[in-house]
C-alpha cells in the first residue's frame, strides 16, 4: 500500500511535508530545471515587504564550517511586483505557495497580510519576525514574547489564510515565543530562522560581511534546530514546521520524529538543487520500508529513554 504523505497544517492541506525555506529558493522558478515544482509540499518564497528592498551591500555571504552566514538584507521585489509578476508565474504550477512576509512595524505586517489575502493562489502566510539582518524588523519582534503575541494577534485579525509564525532561535526559551504565537492565534509555528553569527578576515581585520553580522544556516545548526523543534512541539498544540540544516531524507525524518508536522529545506538547495524532490521520494520510501501508513504516524514518535 502506498504510504500517505499528505499533511494538514491547520486548515492548510499539503500533498507532502516538504517545503522550501524562504530566501533559499528564490520565487520558485529558479529551480525548475532541477525539481518538478509540482511534487513539492509547498513553495515558500523569498520574504516580501510592502516596498521593494535593495538589500545589503556586498559581501553578503560567507562560508563557515558546514554552514554559511548570510546578510542579504531582505532584498526583494516588493509586494506589487511580487503579485504582478512572481505570483502569476507561480500560479501555473499546481503547488501550494506560501508567502513569507516581513516589515518594520506591526502595521506593515498587517497591510501585507490584508493585501495578500485577496491574491489568488496564496495558500498561507509565513511571518518572518526573526530575520536578524534588518535592524527594525528583525531581532526586536522575535525575541520578546509580548511582542510576538501582539504582532500575531494583530495579523490574525487581517486574514483567514493559514498563519504561520516563523521564530528566531536567538532566544533563551523558544517555547515562550511559540506559546505567545499560539495564544496570538497562529495556525502553525515554523522554526528555526538563522542563528546570529560573525566572521572576521584576519588579513584585512574587517568583518567578512559588509553588514558585520549575519545569519548562520546549514548543517552546522541542525542539532540546535532539532532541539528547538522538539521543545516547541512539546509545548504547543498547533503544528510545528521544522527548519534548520535539513539536507537529506534522514535529516527530514529526524525533524518529523522530533515533532515537526512538516519541514523546510533551506541552504541545502544551494548544495544540491534537486534535494527537495529527493526528500519527497525519500520520505515515501522510508514510510514504505518501515511499514508506516502515514507521515502523521511518524510525527513526534521519537522514543525517549525511561528513567
Amino acid at each position, binding site marked *: 500500500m502506498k504510504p500517505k504523505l499528505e499533511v494538514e497544517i491547520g486548515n492548510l492541506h499539503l500533498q507532502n511535508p516538504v517545503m522550501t525555506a524562504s*530566501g533559499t529558493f528564490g520565487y520558485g522558478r529558479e*529551480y525548475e530545471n532541477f525539481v518538478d515544482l509540482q511534487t513539492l509540499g509547498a513553495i515558500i518564497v523569498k520574504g516580501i515587504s510592502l516596498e521593494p528592498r535593495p538589500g545589503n551591500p*556586498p559581501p*553578503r*555571504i560567507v562560508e563557515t564550517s558546514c554552514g*554559511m552566514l548570510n546578510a*542579504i538584507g531582505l532584498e526583494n521585489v516588493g509586494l506589487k511586483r511580487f503579485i504582478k509578476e512572481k505570483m502569476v508565474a507561480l500560479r501555473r504550477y499546481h503547488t501550494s505557495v506560501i508567502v513569507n512576509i516581513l516589515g518594520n512595524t506591526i502595521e506593515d505586517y498587517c497591510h501585507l497580510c490584508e493585501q495578500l489575502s485577496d491574491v489568488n493562489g496564496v495558500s498561507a502566510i509565513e511571518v518572518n519576525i526573526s530575520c536578524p539582518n534588518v535592524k527594525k524588523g528583525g531581532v526586536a519582534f522575535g525575541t520578546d514574547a509580548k511582542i510576538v503575541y501582539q504582532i500575531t494577534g494583530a495579523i490574525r485579525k487581517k486574514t483567514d489564510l493559514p498563519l504561520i509564525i516563523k521564530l528566531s532561535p536567538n532566544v533563551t526559551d523558544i517555547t515562550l515565543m511559540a506559546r505567545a504565537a499560539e495564544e496570538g492565534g497562529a495556525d502553525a509555528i515554523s522554526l528555526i530562522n538563522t542563528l546570529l553569527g560573525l566572521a572576521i578576515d584576519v588579513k584585512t581585520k574587517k568583518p567578512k560581511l559588509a553588514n558585520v553580522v549575519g545569519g548562520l544556516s546549514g548543517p552546522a545548526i541542525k542539532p540546535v534546530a532539532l532541539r528547538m523543534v522538539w521543545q516547541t512541539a512539546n509545548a504547543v498544540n498547533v503544528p510545528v514546521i521544522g527548519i534548520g540544516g535539513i539536507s537529506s531524507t534522514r535529516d527530514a525524518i529526524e525533524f518529523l520524529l522530533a515533532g515537526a508536522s512538516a519541514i523546510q529545506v533551506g*541552504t541545502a538547495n544551494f548544495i544540491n538543487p534537486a534535494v527537495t524532490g529527493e526528500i519527497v521520494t525519500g520520505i515515501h520510501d522510508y514510510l514504505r520500508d518501515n511499514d508506516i501508513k502515514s507521515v502523521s504516524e511518524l510525527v513526534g514518535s521519537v522514543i525517549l529513554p525511561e528513567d
Partner: protein
Amino acid sequence: MNQFLTKAKILENVEVGPNVFRLTFEAEEVAEAAKAGQFVMIKTATEASDDPILRRPFSIHRVDGKRVFILYKVVGRGTKNLAKQQMEIDLVGPLGNGFTIPEEGNVAIVGGGLGIAPLLFVAQQAIRKGRKEEEILILIGARTSAEFPVVDDFRKRGLKVRTATDDGSAGHHGLVTELMDMEGDWTVMTCGPAPMMRAVAKRCEEKNWDCQVSLETTMACGMGACLGCAVRGKVKHEYKHVCKDGPVFKAGDVCL
C-alpha cells in the same frame, strides 16, 4: 534555459602551471548547452563530507564534443580539495549569461592572470560565428611568464596573441592595457583582477569601444535564488547579481 545537475566522469585533472590545474570531464549535455562566459558550480567536498559546504564557481574554459574543460588555480580549501579528485565531480551548469559576441567587427580578448580561463571559449565561439582570425586579437597579462598556461592554446588556433608581464619576463614589460593600441572599432571582452578590468574599461570608454567584463564574487546558489552574489550597479543602492545578471556585464552597468 537548460541547466543540469550531474556527476561527470573526470578524464584528466592535472597541474599545467604553478598551482594551476586543468580539469577535463565528460558532460555531454553541459557541453552542448554551454556558451562562452558561462560557468559551472562544482562540489569540492567528498561525497561523505559536508565541508566545504558551498559549491565553487568556475568558468567553462572550452568545450570539445562531450568534453568540458576548466582551468583553475588552487587558492583555498575548495580548490585544494578539487585538485585531489580523480574519479568524478558533482556539478551544476551551465549557469549565467555569457559574452555577447558581435555579429561583425573586431573582437579583442583581454585576460589577466587566470582571468584568461573563459576567454579561449570566446575565441572558439567567435571563430565558429564566422569571424576571421585577423579580426580577433588576444591580449594577456600576467605577473610573470610562468603564468601563461594557455597562450599556446590560442596560438595553435592561429590567433594573434600579445602578452605583457609585470616583471618583463615575457612579452611587453608592463600592463596589458598598454597593449590596447588598436585602431578602429572593437568589442572588448575582458576577465581578470578587478584593477585590470577597471583599467580596460576605462580605456574602452576613452576609445568608445563596447566593453564586456566578467565578474567574480562569492556565490552560494549560482542560479539567482539566494541573492548572495550582489555587486553594486551604477545607481546607488542598486545591485546586480553576478550569477544571474552576469557573470558577464556591460562595463557601464556595474561598479568595477
